[in-house]
């Protein structure tokens, strides 16, 4: 199902804000939608930024996967829309760039 509007980005656009909380980039991780069961990389979710914070929705069923609100000195994260998130912990090695 597609969203009604074109005002969304991809989940990977949330990587910067999420890096304030997580040590590893979770946008490259695969998560399962708690509503439809689709297993997708978080980067493939539809990200809405025209709201107070960030809202990521499942690219398949549009269910809310994650909400992140930045309230001054406190960040509030709601991830109940995902049943799990599988993070590749080897990714830190990939970021080592040969110079």
């Amino acid at each position: 199902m597609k969203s009604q509007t074109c005002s969304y980005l991809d989940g990977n656009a949330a990587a910067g804000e999420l890096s304030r909380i997580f040590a590893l980039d979770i946008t490259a991780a695969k998560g399962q939608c708690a509503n439809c069961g689709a297993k997708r990389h978080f980067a493939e979710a539809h990200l809405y930024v025209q709201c107070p914070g960030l809202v990521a929705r499942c690219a398949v069923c549009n269910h809310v996967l994650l909400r992140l609100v930045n309230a001054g000195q406190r960040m509030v994260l709601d991830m109940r829309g995902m049943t799990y998130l599988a993070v590749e912990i080897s990714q830190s090695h990939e970021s080592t760039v040969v110079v």
Partner: protein
Amino acid sequence: MWRVATVVGLHDETATARTITLTLPNWPGHVAGQHVDARLTAPDGYSAVRSYSIASASNSKNQIEITVERLPNGEVSPYLTQELAVGDQLELRGPIGRWFVWSTEQREPIQLIAGGSGIVPLMAMIRSRVATPTRGNPPFRLLYSVRAPEAIFYRDDLQAIPSEDSSVVVNYAYTRTAPKDWPRLPGRIDKDLILSATWASSVAATFYICGPTGFVESVADLLGTAGNRRENIRTERFGPTGERK
């Protein structure tokens, strides 16, 4: 988390887009396709954060390039493209993102499809590919949808790709004005162009699509119709919301 970057170079790509070269002490290096967040803070403390893809190859030492397209009602891009001067400083966070990236370890054929300023992260991939011209590196194709010839970014670099090195093949799709004698009428990427200018689905290439949301949506649909697997398609949308690129 935030690093202070110093502007060391400015280069106009088009009438509305400017490439900014920045030095960052202790930059950890990036993978082609990653972006940075830039934070601008006004004297009254108000700050705005925007994401910009890195345009330079992944092996640039303590130096990156970003290209910023000026949006008419933008809050940040007019400053970055018109007022920022060599020697000025910017706060940057990054490199960011592990999904929309091409690593030199990948061996499968690569198809890049850019809409307008969506060329920026794809150019980083091309530059990284060209910088490592060893045998066995995968062949690249770029399909670059652009309004008119004068709107092309990185013209010199794209033309400088050695013609004998057919491992990076560039195709243009002009949407409004095409050069004289161009074989295709101006128009958006369609089914025929996907069939003639992108890898066949049997090749199992990895696709990277970057552009405005509507462009990405339409191209991803066409690729699916052409038989490509969703798992092989990576997308990066941008829009006025995030003032991406």
